[in-house]
């Protein structure tokens, strides 16, 4: 499938994944110092999912995200510098410091918001897709949600609705094995989330979420079908998170060494690097250069976030309605 990805796209994909990783690893470190307020849920480990999907999307396409939304945001084109400031609660943040990690949104790039409510995005993305359909703009919508969210009524209702209305929507289940401390083996009553697709009259696909190319290919197919009026798809990405449910989680419910092993054997960045350098398409040096650039970008975003001002008192009473 990498045939269809030219070098530029490959470099872009790598840069996106690396940016997400660097962003999350950095938030992980800074959170530990106690300087970052609120709840933070890191996406590290799952980069290939957001990236492989969003590479297919344009500015008029929408995504709906979750509490674990940083990766989706970056992949959809939200500025990481603004995001970092947002997470630090600064006036310069994507949402002026009013939303925080769980509510980063940027409608100007089709990012409909992280969401503090598990399953909240399913209905919303049906709406953006319906609007696109009515406007005839050929846009699609992608609803990212977790294995835990797959049991929320809103997600089921949205899947049914998407088929009934024949909407261009991808239900992108990121099955990272856990919802908080609960295994998806416990909470999901069938073997795979994708097995639920037939209950909603749509195709279901299962993809290895550590493999950017697998995600890219499957998502491409589903998105193209949706764009051409072929209706919704349920796509399950099997993946894992490298950190706890939220920062502070001791992860006693995971086998010791589970993550370490994943990092060594399944890391999406390593796999990507191995593959694209193996056939000579891209050199290690090119990727290293991206690593360095990304590191500088994220370092800079933190320096800026730290020194940026917090929202001024007057901001408390603005942005409630269009009029105030």
């Amino acid at each position, binding site marked *: 499938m990498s045939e269809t990805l030219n070098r530029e796209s490959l470099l872009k994909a790598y840069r996106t994944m690396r940016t997400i990783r660097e962003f999350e690893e950095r938030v992980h470190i800074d959170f530990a110092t106690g300087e970052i307020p609120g709840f933070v849920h890191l996406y590290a480990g799952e980069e290939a999912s957001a990236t492989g999907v969003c590479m297919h999307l344009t500015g008029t396409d929408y995504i709906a995200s979750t509490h674990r939304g940083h990766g989706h945001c970056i992949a959809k084109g939200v500025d990481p510098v603004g995001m970092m400031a947002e997470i630090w609660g600064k006036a310069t943040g994507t949402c002026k410091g009013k939303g925080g990690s769980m509510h980063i949104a940027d409608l100007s790039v089709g990012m409909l918001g992280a969401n503090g409510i598990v399953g909240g995005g399913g209905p919303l993305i049906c709406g953006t897709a319906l609007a696109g359909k009515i406007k005839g703009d050929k846009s699609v919508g992608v609803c990212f949600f977790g294995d835990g969210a797959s049991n929320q009524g809103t997600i089921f209702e949205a899947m049914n609705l998407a088929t009934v*209305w024949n909407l261009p929507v991808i239900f992108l289940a990121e099955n990272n094995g856990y919802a908080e401390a609960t295994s998806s083996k416990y909470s999901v009553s069938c073997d795979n989330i994708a097995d639920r697709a037939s209950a909603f009259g749509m195709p279901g696909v299962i993809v290895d979420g550590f493999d950017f190319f697998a995600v890219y290919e499957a998502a491409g197919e589903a998105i193209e079908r949706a764009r051409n009026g072929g209706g919704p798809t349920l796509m399950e990405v099997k993946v894992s998170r490298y950190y706890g449910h939220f920062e502070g989680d001791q992860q006693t419910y995971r086998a010791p060494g589970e993550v370490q092993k994943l990092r060594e054997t399944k890391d999406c960045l390593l796999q990507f690097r191995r593959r694209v350098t193996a056939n000579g398409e891209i050199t290690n040096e090119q990727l290293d250069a991206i690593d360095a650039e990304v590191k500088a970008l994220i370092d800079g975003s933190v320096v800026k976030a730290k020194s940026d001002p917090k929202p001024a008192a007057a901001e408390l009473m603005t942005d409630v309605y269009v009029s105030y």
Partner: protein
Amino acid sequence: MARKISYQQAISEAMDQEMARDQTVIVMGEDVAGGAGTPGEEDAWGGVLGVTKGLFHKYPGRVIDTPISESGYVGAAVGAACNGLRPVAELMFIDFMGVCFDQIFNQAAKFRYMFGGKAETPVVIRAMYGAGFAAAAQHSQCLYNIFTHIPGLKVVVPSNPYDAKGLLIQSIRDNDPVIFLEHKVLYTMEGEVPEESYAIPFGEANVLREGDDVTIVAFGRMVNFAMEAAGNLQKKGIHCDVIDPRTTSPLDEDTILESVEKTGRLVVVDESHPRCSMASDIAGLVAQKAFGALKAPIEQVTAPHVPVPFSDSLEVLYVPSVARIEAAVTRVKEYS
């Protein structure tokens, strides 16, 4: 302005005119057309009480039936509003809000604030409310206080056909999420309604009657009860201001406060349960901001703290009556 139509027709007409005026207005809900899936029988219902009848064929593709998935389609209306449409989603009975409240209060209402002012969500959610149909506890509630509590929502409770049309037009044009509540007993109420389109601004109370003795603030169907009571009281020499705020959020505080400054006496009439209600909201407002003018206790005339009963022998006792309003007004008038 001699034409008389019903409250229900006024609501229909508002949607019709806005759909004609603005391509981005769509209507969705359970059986807003009806007959979906039965070829040739589309628009079989036009809403459970026929309010959207006829729109389906007039505006192809813009009147959309839904499965019974309120979270799904109300959320879809919210999402569509974020992407350039002006959806009017019908929830049928406001009592059903319990299966989709999250999409209303955590999503639609909060987007603009959470996103730092970067979202506009021009969605309207229409629903019937109120007792009087012997529809029992799960189909007769008011609940506007719950929506009024939530920052980011606007809440509209028209009491007559004229207001219903003008306020619904404003709701559709408004760029914030609006909860538009229609009292089911008022559907058959007739009134003069201009044929042309007009919008009534939010947050502007209607003073239906003026009098120096007592201020009555009432909502929805209760406005009509208050007017009747005021008429009767007039004969007894008690003269009332009757104020219909029309929107509970935003609230026209000034009109209420000015009236109480004049009368010094206030009765609030609210069909809902009493606790944390609009009645208490208005009472609290006045007790804080017009205290100096108050000459008597503020009386709240509300339904009791019980679910809405089925049997009409109880339902009629449940709903605040004209007699109870008169008694309350008389008490505050005679207080000294």
